[in-house]
C-alpha cells in the first residue's frame, strides 16, 4: 500500500510498494491498490526492475498450464487476421491501428519482394524499417525501432530449375530464411554461404519433419550477413542449388 504522505521515491515508499509487487505481478490487486502502486513505479526505476523480475517468475509459472490440442484453423485465422487481411481484419479488441498501418505496408512490400524473387532472377535490394512497441502488451514501454536490410535470391538447381528462394536480413538480429518449393521429409538439408572473400561458411542443417515443412529460418552472424551466394546442400554435402544474393 502506498502512503501518499511520503515522498514518492523515499525508502519508506519503496518498502511499502515492495510489499505489493508480488501481487501486482500476478494482477491480484484491486484496481485502486494497483493504481497507487503504478503511480510509484512511474517515478522509481528500482521498483520497476523488481516488478520485472517477479513478472518473469510468473511467466515461467504459466508453463504449468496443460497443453491442449489447438483449434485446427488457428493458423488460418491468425494469417487471415494479420498477413492476408491486414490489421483492420483483426478480431474485436485488437490493437489500435495507428502504429500498425505503416508497418503493415512494409510487411506487404517484403512479401512482394519474396514472391518477386521467385520469378525474377537476381532478386531485389531494399531496406525495411519496422516499428513496434516493445513488450507483449504490458504497460506502454519505450518504442523500439528495428531496421532490416533485406537481400533476396532465387535458388536455382544445377539443372537450371528454380527450387526456392532465400532472404537474408542484416541489421538487428540478422537472419537467413530459406524456402524450398518441395522438400523430402527426413532428409538433412544443409545450408552454406559464400562470403565476399570467396570463402564458404556453413550455416547449419535442417531436416524437414514432413513435406509441408518447407521454410527454414535461422539466426546468422556477421560473417554471413554480407554473403554473395547461398548454397543448398543435400546428404553427403552435394550442392543441390544455389542463389546469388543481390
Amino acid at each position, binding site marked *: 500500500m502506498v502512503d501518499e504522505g511520503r515522498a514518492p521515491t523515499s525508502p519508506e515508499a519503496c518498502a511499502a510498494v515492495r510489499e505489493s509487487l508480488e501481487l501486482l505481478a500476478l494482477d491480484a490487486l484491486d484496481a485502486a491498490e494497483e493504481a497507487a502502486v503504478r503511480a510509484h513505479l512511474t517515478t522509481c526505476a528500482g521498483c520497476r526492475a523488481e516488478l520485472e523480475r517477479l513478472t518473469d517468475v510468473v511467466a515461467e509459472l504459466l508453463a504449468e498450464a496443460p497443453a491442449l490440442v489447438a483449434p485446427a484453423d488457428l493458423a488460418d485465422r*491468425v494469417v487471415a487476421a494479420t498477413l492476408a487481411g491486414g490489421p483492420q481484419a483483426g478480431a474485436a479488441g485488437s490493437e489500435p491501428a495507428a502504429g500498425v498501418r505503416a508497418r503493415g505496408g512494409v510487411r506487404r512490400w517484403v512479401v512482394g519482394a519474396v514472391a518477386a524473387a521467385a520469378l525474377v532472377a537476381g532478386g531485389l535490394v531494399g531496406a525495411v524499417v*519496422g516499428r513496434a512497441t516493445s513488450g507483449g502488451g504490458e504497460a506502454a514501454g519505450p518504442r523500439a525501432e528495428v531496421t532490416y536490410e533485406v537481400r533476396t535470391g532465387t535458388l536455382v538447381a544445377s539443372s537450371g530449375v528454380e527450387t526456392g528462394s532465400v532472404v537474408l536480413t542484416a541489421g538487428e538480429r540478422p537472419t537467413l530464411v530459406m524456402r524450398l518449393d518441395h522438400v523430402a521429409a527426413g532428409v538433412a538439408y544443409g545450408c552454406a554461404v559464400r562470403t565476399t572473400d570467396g570463402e564458404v561458411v556453413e550455416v547449419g542443417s535442417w531436416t524437414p519433419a514432413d513435406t509441408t515443412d518447407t521454410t527454414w529460418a535461422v539466426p546468422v552472424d556477421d560473417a554471413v550477413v554480407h554473403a554473395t551466394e547461398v548454397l543448398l546442400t543435400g546428404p553427403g554435402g552435394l550442392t543441390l542449388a544455389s542463389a546469388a544474393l543481390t
Partner: protein
Amino acid sequence: MVTALPRSRRAAAPARRAPGAASDDGALLVAIALGDEEATRAFVHRHGPQVFGLAMTLCRDRSLAEDVAQRTFERAWRHAASFDGERASARTWLLTITRRLAIDELRRRRPSPVAPDDLTALLAPSTADTEGAGLAGVERARVTAALAELPDEQRRAVVMAALGGLSAREVAEVEGVPLGTAKTRVRLGLRKLRATLSREVDDG
C-alpha cells in the same frame, strides 16, 4: 561445395532444426516480422497447444479461449520485431501475452471464482502431444518441482492467482480467509518460488 570449417568460423546458428527447438524461435519471429506466412503458420503450429491450453485454463470457455489464443498470435505478430530472446523464451513471452488478454477478458466479465477443486485440473499433466513437448517438459519439471516446495496454502494461492486469474480478494473468498492472509500467502509463495528458481539457475 561445403568445406569443413573450424568451429569458430561457423555461423552462430543451431546445427539443426530439431522439432520444437526454442533456439530458432527468434529467427522465426524475424521472418514473421517480415510478413512471412509460412513462418507464421510454423510458429502457430509450434506454440498453439500451449497457448490454447493456458487460455482454456484461465477462461474455462472454449470460444473465449479460441479468441484469446488467436489474439495472442496476432499481438505476437505485431510485436515480433521487438521480441527480445535474451530475456525470455518465445513461449514464455507468448504465454505472458495470453494471460494478459485472458485476464482482461475475465475481469471484464467478472466470473465467479474458481472452486478449489479445479486446482487439481489446473496442475494436471499435459496429455496433448505437442511439437514442443520435450522442451516444454524440461522447463515445466523445474517449475513443478519449485511449486512442490511451497507450503500447500501458498501454492494454492499462487496457482489460483497465476493460472486461475483470481485477485487476492477472490483467493480470500475461495479459501475462506481474511484478505490480508490471502495477500500474504500469494506474496510469500511467489517470493519463495523466485528464490528456488534463481537458486537452480545459479547452481547451473
